[in-house]
């Protein structure tokens, strides 16, 4: 960025800094409270001070010892991994077809793909619920993964990137004897690295944070995800806020960590995706 496009007068600047600081505090203070409480001993839970005077891991101990939180994390990690890999594979192939070939029906199919972006889960929940009931898939990973394989926004985003990819490189690959799949795998994808990485992370965060769908199809603790686990914990262990905040900390940590790996790209991808957590 070059010089500032607009320079507010000093009083405005001060006022805006105060507003922004207040907004940032509204983000950071609750986070600090959560993390602080996660390390507080039981007798300090009700104290106003955000930080524990005697930090302890006891809350984490109870979280992992008395609940199945480790299992929930495994469920979340495994289904997120499997689902995102499948979503990416499907989106990459489709985006490539849309970006590379014009064929009868391509416009219609692309419009259908875009149209699906506008359909939230709640609009299709009843028939899919029935479907899953008939297949006997309640409380399985399949119920979490399979109805969510098509990610229209990922198709759209990848298609944009692929259309701005130099066409000569694909032509050159073809002249060199590469078929379309080889050209995709060997020539195009290696050059989409950062975009793919950001997309992968955004899809993973979306899946990790998901609530509505798992809530609908998962009931037993065996297939519970982290988000469901935290809600259950709130309902069942109502008084144990220390362990609850330990769970909240652990559930948020992976998301924040991957975010800081590729901050800027991820924010851009989020903006492009329309996913808002």
């Amino acid at each position: 960025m070059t010089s500032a496009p607009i320079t507010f007068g000093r009083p405005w600047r001060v006022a805006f800094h105060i507003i922004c600081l207040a907004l940032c505090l509204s983000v950071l203070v609750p986070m600090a409270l959560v993390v602080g409480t996660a390390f507080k001993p039981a007798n300090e839970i009700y104290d106003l001070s955000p930080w524990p005077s005697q930090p302890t891991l006891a809350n984490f101990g109870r979280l992992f010892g008395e609940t199945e939180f480790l299992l929930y994390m495994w469920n979340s990690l495994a289904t997120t991994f499997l689902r995102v890999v499948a979503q990416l594979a499907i989106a990459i192939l489709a985006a490539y077809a849309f970006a590379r070939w014009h064929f009868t029906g391509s416009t219609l199919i692309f419009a259908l793909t875009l149209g699906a972006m506008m359909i939230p889960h709640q609009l299709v929940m009843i028939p899919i619920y029935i479907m899953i009931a008939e297949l006997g898939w309640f409380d399985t990973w399949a119920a979490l993964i399979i109805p969510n394989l098509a990610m229209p926004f990922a198709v759209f985003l990848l298609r944009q990137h692929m259309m701005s990819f130099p066409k000569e490189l694909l032509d050159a690959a073809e002249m060199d004897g590469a078929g379309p799949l080889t050209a995709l795998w060997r020539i195009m994808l290696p050059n989409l690295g950062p975009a793919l990485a950001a997309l992968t992370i955004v899809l993973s965060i979306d899946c990790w944070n998901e609530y509505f769908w798992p809530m609908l199809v998962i009931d037993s603790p065996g297939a519970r995800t982290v988000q469901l686990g935290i809600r259950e914990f709130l309902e069942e262990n109502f008084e144990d806020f220390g362990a609850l905040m330990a769970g909240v900390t652990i559930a948020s940590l992976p998301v924040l960590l991957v975010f800081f790996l590729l901050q800027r790209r991820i924010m851009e991808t989020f903006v492009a995706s329309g996913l808002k957590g």
Partner: protein
Amino acid sequence: MDGTTAVAAARPPVRAGRPRFRGLVPWLYLAPLLAPLILFVYWPLLHTAWLSLVRWNLQPGQATEFVGLANYAGVLESSLFADASWNSMIYVLAAIPLKVLLPLPVAVFLWSLGRAGGTYRTILFLPTLISFVIVAVVVGWMLNPIAGHVTALLSWLGMGFANPLATPDGAIITIIVLSAWKVFGFNVLLYLAGLASIRRDLIEAMRLDGASDWVILRRLIWPLLSPTTFFVLIATVIFSLQQVFTPIDILTEGGPENGTTNFFYMVYQLAFRTFDIGRGAAGTVLLFLLLLVITLLKLRVLEKRVHYQQ
């Protein structure tokens, strides 16, 4: 063998060929997308439309009974629908100042800071990353009458404090505020993306014409940003209807006295709380029509945006 012969040996024969099923190839790449798209989006939409015309309670053995438009009448006449409509309107109206108007000046300010605004931007973005479950759980904890920090803070200040989630008004305000908090940074980012696309030479030209910052903001940036503003508005309206599902479900389950339920939560209540599949499907079809109208509006705005770029 040496390299030359190896290269020659690998030479494939040139086949005299006809185009072999070349038209089929794109469909092979699209099939993995089309299958779930049809099975889990478009077929369920049609199925829902059918289910909205029958009476069924989700029991596998139970026969379905065709009832025509009775489910629609049932939904439209219910007090749940009246409450959901009213609340949906409140959610949307409250969203406009909090989520659409307020982020705009903040975004312009961050834009004027350039690189220095990065820290603010990143911190404000963090709520987007945190799951709504966790946001709702933490808010529930902080508002908890016994253990909550907000409660404790207020009683320490000598103010009595009742749990806002216990009253309909308090509950809906809580959900409005926490959803505004969650989406604020995201909308700031949307505005920043719009601002970044404004060409600097336009601003410089206007400044050379003797315009002040205020004039530039009002006469150049606001009009050029208007497609973005409209986009943020539409996206926020949908967000304010849909994404609050999670905090509603976790904090209030639509209550108290249907005080926080909205269209999205209503169809869930109908289908999976009262197990009235017909009415749930009828509500879903109505909600679909509403979203369709909003989406068509959005498409018109996108066309306008293209127009602006020329």
